[in-house]
């Protein structure tokens, strides 16, 4: 138990700092945005799990040989059935910290969701009054504004894509189609859920520089994923032209942006640069075996802390 807690603590530190730093700078991610995305999720989940797990296991050391018997004894103490005398200060401290961190993470995630949801509802209300349906394009509305902009507002069956007059005037039909396919990809691949989770992670741990790095990387990766979908239907030149014309990138999931509270923008010029650079100078996709390796690594990353926490209890 004692060594497990140390191992989890080291894993938590590695996942909180050096690993995201390296991954945020890695160049291969643009060659396989999907595997990179899975890896980011595994890092975030495994990081949180080992952070909480390390403190939990350390706190339970005096209470039993494994997690399950430890938790059983803890419950006994909390219900007043057994005396908590064997629980020293530091162990009790670790247990409280684990509980607090867990509650904090869950609560922040829910709070972020509520905030996004409220903002989206207000946005939708205004849109209903200000926009008009685009002729011949179901689920698409046009708003009269000169700035070229396209974005999607997720909401299950009520998801809509919004285009501005400025955009429609600026782009040729082919380029407009590229933008629409790109936006639809965001909706059909449920990218707003990813953005929500990483926005929540960042609000929960804003002092962790890597939560910002993660959010930024994930944002760039979903843009690349949507670009790749668009490339199935339009040629590379059209997509590049559309992105370049809209300059700061046509695609955004609007409602997330205000949640970003920190004042740092998620969608940076670097994201657009990276998208354009990757389309203009396409590198071959990451070889299949390497992609598989990344995915297996992601699964292992999650499996290791989970196994450390549960397996000894099951065996004992």
């Amino acid at each position: 138990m004692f060594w497990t807690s140390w191992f989890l603590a080291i894993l938590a530190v590695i996942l909180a700092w050096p690993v995201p730093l390296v991954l945020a700078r890695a160049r291969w991610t643009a060659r396989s945005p999907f595997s990179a995305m899975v890896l980011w999720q595994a890092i975030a989940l495994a990081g949180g799990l080992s952070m909480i797990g390390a403190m939990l296991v350390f706190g339970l050391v005096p209470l039993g040989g494994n997690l399950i018997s430890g938790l059983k004894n803890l419950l006994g103490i909390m219900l007043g059935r057994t005396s908590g005398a064997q629980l020293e200060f530091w162990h009790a401290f670790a247990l409280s910290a684990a509980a607090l961190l867990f509650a904090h993470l869950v609560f922040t995630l829910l709070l972020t969701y509520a905030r996004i949801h409220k903002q989206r509802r207000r946005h939708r209300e205004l849109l209903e009054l200000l926009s008009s349906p685009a002729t011949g394009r179901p689920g698409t509305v046009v708003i009269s504004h000169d700035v070229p902009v396209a974005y999607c507002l997720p909401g299950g069956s009520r998801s809509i894509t919004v285009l501005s007059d400025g955009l429609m005037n600026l782009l040729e039909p082919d380029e407009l189609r590229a933008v629409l396919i790109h936006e639809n990809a965001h909706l059909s691949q449920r990218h707003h859920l990813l953005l929500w989770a990483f926005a929540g992670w960042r609000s929960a741990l804003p002092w962790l520089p890597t939560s910002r790095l993660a959010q930024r990387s994930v944002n760039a990766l979903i843009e690349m994923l949507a670009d790749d979908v668009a490339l199935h239907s339009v040629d590379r030149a059209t997509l590049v032209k559309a992105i370049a014309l809209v300059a700061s990138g046509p695609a955004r999931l609007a409602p997330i942006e205000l949640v970003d509270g920190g004042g740092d923008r998620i969608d940076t010029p670097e994201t657009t640069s990276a998208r354009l650079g990757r389309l203009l100078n396409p590198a071959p996709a990451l070889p299949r075996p390497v992609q598989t390796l990344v995915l297996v690594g992601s699964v292992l990353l999650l499996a290791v802390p989970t196994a450390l926490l549960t397996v000894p209890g099951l065996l004992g």
Partner: protein
Amino acid sequence: MATLGELERAVMDLLWEHPEAITANALRDLLSQRPPAVAGGTDTKELAVTTVLTVLSRLEKKGLVERERSIRPHRYRSVTSRAEHTAELMLEVLGSAPDREAVLARFIGTVTDGEATTLRKLLGRG
């Protein structure tokens, strides 16, 4: 009968066109004059004033309409103009966007000669 959503839209359109405050009765008359296609594509001739009042109080709750209570009947007006609401939406979308020029400038700073040529060709300026 038009749906509430369609009516809200028609009412807001009218309020945006009339900057001065207006009574529910006057609004009802204006709504009835509108050709059906404009007022949400449905017939609004038999619109009751109570319906207009319902729509107005919904819009008031949403913070889009304000009511002048000093005289009876109450007069209604839109809180801000249509353009300001659109600007509000766009601000949410674009955030504190760095100006667009900066994005391309940043990109051009990192671009290689080969990429620049390709881009110029694509944009039809090569």
